[in-house]
């Protein structure tokens, strides 16, 4: 096993046609080649209002996920159909160009308050994000309730608030507090 420079690793994420090589690495792993120098890249996505929060992390067995990027993609103003198309392209582009292997999207859930148009529009955006992600890589949907039942012994919201949990379970000082929900999706997915 050896360590590659991040620049070379970045280049190796694409094959000679410019396509992500993640599937090639998976294939090599199945064939028993030692390719552990490239960790998997997973992305957790939470859609809220007119924004998608993406937490991109390197996931290696036995180690806390290492933050690669914490970003927010905002739905552009103006024509809604055009804005959704742009969001779809941006999500697809990001996942493809960064060789993302797996995406976990926070699923919709019925709230305690009356359903409003803004909730429906947010669900539309969530649908666009899910379909865009699924066109690039393995994509799953996780609801907060399911995470609370299956991840650890506490409720999801308690983990999100717990600074100590993030210090020990996630490698990345730059992770914003508001992005922890998206990061928790990755932790929960790894436990499955």
């Amino acid at each position: 096993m050896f360590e590659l420079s991040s620049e070379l690793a970045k280049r190796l994420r694409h094959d000679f046609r410019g396509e992500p090589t993640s599937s090639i690495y998976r294939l090599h792993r199945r064939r028993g080649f030692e390719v552990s120098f490239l960790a998997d890249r997973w992305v957790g996505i939470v859609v809220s209002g007119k924004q998608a929060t993406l937490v991109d992390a390197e996931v290696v067995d036995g180690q806390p996920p290492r933050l690669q990027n914490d970003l927010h993609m905002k739905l552009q103003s103006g024509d809604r159909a055009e804005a959704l198309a742009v969001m779809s392209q941006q999500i697809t582009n990001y996942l493809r160009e960064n060789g993302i292997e797996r995406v976990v999207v926070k699923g919709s859930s019925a709230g305690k308050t009356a359903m409003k148009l803004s909730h429906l529009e947010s669900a539309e955006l969530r649908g666009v994000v899910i379909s865009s992600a699924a066109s690039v890589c393995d994509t799953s949907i996780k609801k907060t309730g399911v995470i609370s039942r299956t991840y650890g012994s506490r409720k999801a919201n308690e983990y999100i608030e717990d600074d100590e949990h993030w210090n020990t379970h996630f490698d990345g000082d730059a992770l914003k507090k508001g992005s922890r929900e998206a990061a928790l999706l990755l932790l929960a997915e790894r436990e499955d």
Partner: protein
Amino acid sequence: MSKFKSNLAIGKKIDNGHFGEVHMADDDVHGQVAVKIIRRDPNEDDATWQNMKKEFMSEAQLLAKAAHPNIVPVYHLVESNDGQSIQYCMEYCSGGSLKSIYEARPQSISEVRKIANDVLLGLDALHARGMIHRDIKPGNILLDGNGTARIADFGLVTDRIVLGYASQQGYKDHVAYEVWHGKGTSVRSDIWALGMTLYRLLHGEAWYTETDLPRYHIRDGNFCDRLKWLPHIPKQWRRMIRAMMYDDTDRRLQSVGQVQNALSRLPVSPDWACEVRRAEVEWSRQSGNRVVWVLLNRHSSRKHEWRSWSEPLTTGRSKTLARSEGVISASQAKKELEAHLLP
């Protein structure tokens, strides 16, 4: 490359590129293609020319990796049969480059946002692959048959070429402050160049060339504060473009993602069409079943006058909406027009 000789049937010239002319051509495999012909400078010695070819070849290895919907695919590089030029064969984009669009008139803010979205996707792909374009400008953005903007000519420019060889008109207008001061190109110098590109597209050539060209001032610093804006460009657009062009690279928008987010917040209405002529600037937009017009008469550099009226699309009378109180100062006209065009 030198092992491969050209079999291209070169056709008519369609553009002038940074290093040479662009021609239509027929290729045995790809059919109609565009070919950039990079000719040897007659004053160049053998060693320099060989070195130049070597640089192009090393960069060509990167080009093969760059397949993306917003990047013009490069098929191959070959040497001409006489060894005096390199032929750079790429997909033909029937919509031409944004240079001709920029030369024709200012583009509306909705058109520029569409172009920016397309270009940012391509640029994001290049940056994610560890590449820098180094030459983002209207002439290097092509429109395909569907009107999608695609980046061309990346990978051909090296840091040495940026300031050493650049002589093409307009090129140095896209070189960021830190590059003028000896720092290398980077993701952030690409963002600077894209900021300048968006500014040029929003204003068109006639307006752009009314003031001193950027190449004479960028190195002095604070160039983004010197930009002269057409009055219909919203404040948010001005702020974003300035944020792409700050001298301080730490203060500048740092990544394509940040520019995409900034762009997503920009308004696209009112969406004025604009024409800039020597003594007049004219704006128009449709509002319901009427067309709103605004005309600025520039009697001199200091004395201006403007009026606005609406006309029905079909039948009816035109209505005066507003006007200046006779001939006023240029600064007063600018202030009044900003208030009128951006309610």
